[in-house]
């Protein structure tokens, strides 16, 4: 194992898959000459040339559609959104074309494409640039949705996503790009299958389910709780569609309590979906209502003091765990 940053892990996955398969290419705003808005694709233009690392104008709907069309015809595009916020203007392409083409064509056309980029809030970029978009995309049959929190997961999952024949929504994070973590050594290929959760921490008192940026708050909360004698299972589903249902339910059957911490808005979304599944599959095991800790139900404010209140914090997760343990 060696330690690298999240952005380097994403880049390594793309480079390895582009070396492996000529049909794989990267397209997006500033991915080439600028070296990536967040330096994720740094050096790739020099390595692969402008045929395979393609800079685009500001035209998300256009280049997302070009990706889908190219995938329909046999290529395997990686479409980078500078941030997932901008995917809103390309939603038609993802929802109506990428997700549905296989079905609408009676199975004649596959759309092997990965849409990727940073998801969720950065810091003080206000209402239009701070969406946690999984709540929209995880709803759509025909898409797979990944939201890796660690460099190792980002690399292994992205490689699987690129190789799969279905459209994958791959949610990274601007605040995650600098996170360091262990990945397998060079030459040791690791493919992490989509739809498999990772048990990040084990404990018998409560289960915390969390992914993306909120995962780190959940882990900090678990550290804090441990100091108070409360041991938690922390489960990172890593993929939100398909969801590794079993791992979460098995954990709740052991701990009898469940807290779900997510960055997205509280109305619906993967957080609510997980709560629904747990109440149904582990009803007889629950000793307290399932609690969710989410972003607040407001457009993201600019003011730092308010943004900090909107985003999930470890204190909130700790409070929720104590609440399901009736230790307030």
């Amino acid at each position, binding site marked *: 194992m060696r330690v690298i940053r999240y952005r380097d892990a994403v880049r390594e996955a793309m480079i390895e898959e582009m070396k492996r398969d000529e049909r794989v*290419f990267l397209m997006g705003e500033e991915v080439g000459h600028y070296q990536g808005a967040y330096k994720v694709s740094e050096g790739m233009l020099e390595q692969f040339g402008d*045929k395979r690392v393609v800079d*685009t*104008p500001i*035209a998300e*709907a*256009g*280049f*997302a*559609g*070009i*990706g*889908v*069309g*190219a*995938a*329909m*015809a*046999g*290529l395997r595009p990686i479409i980078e959104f500078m941030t997932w916020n901008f995917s809103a*203007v390309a939603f*038609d*392409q993802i929802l*109506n*074309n990428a997700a549905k*083409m*296989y*079905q*609408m*064509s*009676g*199975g*004649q*056309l*596959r759309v*092997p494409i990965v849409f990727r980029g940073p998801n969720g809030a950065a810091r003080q970029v206000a209402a239009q640039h701070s969406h946690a978009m999984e709540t929209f995309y995880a709803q759509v*049959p*025909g898409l*797979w949705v990944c939201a890796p929190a660690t460099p190792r997961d980002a690399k292994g999952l992205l490689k*699987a996503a690129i*190789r*799969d*024949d*279905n459209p994958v929504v791959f949610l990274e994070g601007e605040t995650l790009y600098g996170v360091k973590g262990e990945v397998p050594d060079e030459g040791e290929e690791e*493919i992490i*299958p*989509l*739809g*498999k959760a990772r048990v990040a921490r084990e404990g018998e008192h409560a289960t915390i389910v969390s992914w993306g940026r909120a995962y780190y708050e959940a882990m900090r909360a678990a550290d804090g709780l441990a100091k108070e004698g409360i041991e938690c299972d922390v489960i990172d589903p890593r993929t939100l*569609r*398909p*969801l*590794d*249902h*079993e791992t979460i339910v098995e954990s709740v059957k052991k701990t009898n309590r469940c807290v779900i911490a997510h960055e997205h808005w509280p109305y619906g979304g993967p957080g609510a979906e997980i709560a*629904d*599944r747990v109440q*149904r*599959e582990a009803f007889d095991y629950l000793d307290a209502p399932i609690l969710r800790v989410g972003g607040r139900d407001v457009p993201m404010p600019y003011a730092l003091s308010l943004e900090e209140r909107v985003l999930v914090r470890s204190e909130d997760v700790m409070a929720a765990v104590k609440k399901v343990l009736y230790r307030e």
Partner: protein
Amino acid sequence: MAGRTVNVEELKGYYRRMWLIRRFEEESARAYAGGKIGGFLHLYIGQEAIAVGGAAAIGPEDYVITTYRDHGHALARGMTSRAAMAELFGKETGCSKGFGGSMHMFDVEHRFLGGHGIVGGHLALASGVAFKLKYQGEPHVCLGYCGEGATNIGGFHEALSLAAIWKLPAVFIIENNEYSMGTPLSRTLPVRDITLKAQGYGMYSDRFEANDVFEVREKLKKAVEHARSGKGPALIEILTYRFRGHSMSDPGKYRTPEEVELRKKKDPVRVARQLLLDSKVPEKEVEAIDAEVEEEVRDAVQFADESAPPSEELMHDLVYAPSEEGLIENVEHWHKVVSSNIVGGA
């Protein structure tokens, strides 16, 4: 048309294809009225010379993408009447196995990539196919058709803009039938000549009427060769008219019967038929083509009617393409969810 020499064999083929589309559409309208076809049904009647002339302008390895008004293009490209009609009837023997319906016909073998219900974005797909052709160095083109109404949506402009920047082998063809559903183009377009939009993208353009299938073919061939030779995409506006409403639910009250009758005098199918007769093809021979078409459409309707609808299992199987081992896990729960309306499985 007097004094004009045409390749009679080609003309027979084009006439047959146009008449097939006409009769196919008329019979699908009848089946719709009889409750055999549901949803939306947008007929191509009046515009046949474009689909047939367009198909004649390209080769078997070139691609075609169009909007929801797609039956004519599917048939022109070589889809069987059976597969097209069975799709309208929602049957598993249909081109899209009964999952697409009227608006989503696909025939990958004939490189016909749909049939798209949401217009504008489908032109980006055409640019994407053209991107693939350039990427892999294939000497083919992709034709992307739309109506004049779709030239107002952003997807149209982004598709053209990117295709132009990268000199992609795409030909965008506007079938200007003067009405964006019920709204005349005088209220949707600030200019009458839509090809003016090509200037903004430094694109080859042409504009002509769609009454003569040979003219359509020859003018499109020029655009196709332009795109194929690497000079970049083209924007073509073809002036046409649909004789029926926007869809089956549209009585067409926004235009007068006189207007429609006037336009029917330039009916491209009639023009082609007359050209056959003028070219000394015996009327009996033309009637034999008509009879053949009649039988093909009758057979298609019967085939569609007698076919079975798709199964529930197929509905589940067609959401995700099969994945290689080791790439996806835990789809069992999804299968359980998808098989019942009680969420999580009964």
